[in-house]
């Protein structure tokens, strides 16, 4: 997994609420086993393109300097909907490694941490204030997200502390993979299953019925 320590980047405000994962990446882009690395053009496909397939100049990520955005500033419940991790992959392939919003869809939030993307939860008023500062600078004012000190610094230098679970912070800072860590618990897992087979034997009887 990629590490995340500190990011200073252009931030693009997309202050809609309930932006779902279908809007972030359409399903047909995710069908197949060789899709990684092909997703950048389709990130936010539902918002980025006009019906004739050309780019919608009205959509923020189609305008400089937001095209180069490394951070998205979003509305409530960002990433709600499906569990598709392709939503995170497409953001990452597009160069976005941090999303700041008042709240997130639970599964999307989890998926971010699995890929080295940092979802930052800040108060709604702080999020809209950040977006306003960015817009007033026409995107030139960069936003800094510092995971070591757990603080977001706005273009005008306002510091907004945020919280992130210590375990997850550590994993992001070091780029640690969860599977490796859990595999070190193999004995505990086997012990659990052995006890559980006594306690709930019916869970483990799964052969085809006669």
């Amino acid at each position, binding site marked *: 997994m990629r590490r995340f320590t500190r990011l200073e980047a252009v931030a693009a405000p997309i202050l809609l*609420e309930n932006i779902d994962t279908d809007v972030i990446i359409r399903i047909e882009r995710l069908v197949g086993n060789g899709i990684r690395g092909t997703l950048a053009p389709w990130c936010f496909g539902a918002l980025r393109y006009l019906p004739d397939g050309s780019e919608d100049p009205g959509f923020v990520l189609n305008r400089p300097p937001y095209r180069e955005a490394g951070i998205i500033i979003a509305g409530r419940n960002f990433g709600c909907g499906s*569990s598709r991790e392709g939503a995170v992959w497409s953001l990452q392939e597009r160069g976005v490694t941090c999303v700041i919003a008042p709240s997130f869809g639970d599964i999307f939030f989890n998926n971010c941490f699995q*890929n080295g993307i940092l979802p930052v939860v800040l108060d709604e008023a702080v999020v809209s204030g950040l977006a306003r500062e960015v817009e007033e600078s026409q995107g030139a004012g960069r936003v800094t997200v510092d995971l070591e000190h757990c603080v977001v610094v706005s273009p005008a230098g306002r510091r907004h502390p945020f919280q992130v679970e210590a375990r997850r912070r550590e994993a992001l800072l070091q780029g640690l993979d969860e599977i490796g860590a859990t595999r070190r618990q193999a004995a505990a897992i086997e012990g659990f299953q052995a006890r559980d087979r006594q306690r709930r034997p019916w869970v483990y009887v799964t052969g085809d019925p006669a």
Partner: protein
Amino acid sequence: MAARTLFAKIWDDHVVSDLGDGAVLLHVDRHLLHDLGGSRGLLDLKQRGLAVQSPELTFATPDHAISSAAGRAGTTETGWSLLDALRAETREAGIRLFDVGQRGQGIVHVIGPELGLSLPGTLIVCGDSHTCTHGGVGALAFGIGSSELSHVLATQTLVQRRPKTMRVRFEGALRPGVLPKDLILHLIGVIGAAGGTGYAVEYAGSAIAAMPVEGRLTICNLSIELGAKMGFVAPDETTYAYLQGRPYAPKGEAWEHALAAWRTLPGDPDAAFDREVAIDVAGVAPQVTWGTSPEHVVAVDGTIPDPTAEADPVRRRAMEAALAYMGLEPGGPIAGTKVDWVFIGSCTNGRLSDLREAASVARGNRVADGVRAWVVPGSEIVKRDAEAEGLDRVFTQAGFEWREPGCSMCLAANGEVVPPGQRSVSTSNRNFVGRQGPRARTHLASPAVAAAAALAGAITDVRRPA
């Protein structure tokens, strides 16, 4: 011991170890794979040089990427290659696959309960957000992403944080024409599409107690549309009667043993929840969505809302964008809105009871000119049972198409899409922008409302058909 909720009992039962800082390692009892992500996960594991930890607790079926046409004829090349990969990888790993045409195949969330794989008190995961459906039999069930899927394959566990708990009590008796789908859509309208974010939701109350398991599965299915990763109903006699005799449910002495354990699962009477919501179901009418979030919902005899009346600017903008996308004007009745497509199926409403509801509306009537109406059974077993009682003929005689089981037009990843700009009434769970195809306009509704829309060629109050 302090009073515990159903959620706490099942959760505590699955803790393998405490990782500190609020995270625990949980044991997974059932891991379900489907054709979109199953082979990808198994290939990922191979690449890491790891084996599947518990293949006997893992089950697979194709549903998302296969076409629902006869002979699966419309399946795309990629769809076939995903199915081939799923076949090869499950065979190699020793995982039971319910293949096309076999009893047992179907939408992963329909087959789990139907086969008796999903049991009370179990922890069930699948790389699909509607895994919450299985909560209808009293399980903790939730969707996971691709990385977590690989984690479960490799370790049969997941690292999770304990969510807060919410109880939603549906009290009273449903009015005629009102179905479980209407109750859950109404709830989402009341507390919002993020109302359940961060919560595990227990559905309770007299309306749930009186509801058959299939209706409970529908309610739990839309937990994710409420923002909740999981939703469930405490198991009761209705649950046990539903499960007894199902192919993979415990038998004989094992059944008695399991039953005794399951009876201890319901929450203690004085257990506390972090949030409580009560809905008087007698006040709920059939529902239909007007916008692009499931919270954009009104009674079918209601009015398309006016964004200018919304004080919150973010919400107002979302409403305006939704109305523009849906091609609707605020202020008028939603009934009478012309429709082009009707889709009856999905893990929300693709079970036998749903098809019976739709058939009872369709029987002896005709689909309106210019409307295409599909009925896609949720599983091979649903299909065979429906055909055995003649529902397929009720539908085809009324001008509906009767198709093969799978996800079909619910997500449009199998070549089955609502054409751009066309309007669909769908019994599925997502009316997101482009969900049923680029620029497709989706109205979510119950099977009865959807069938009535097919006959009328417009959204119509199923209680007073046009």
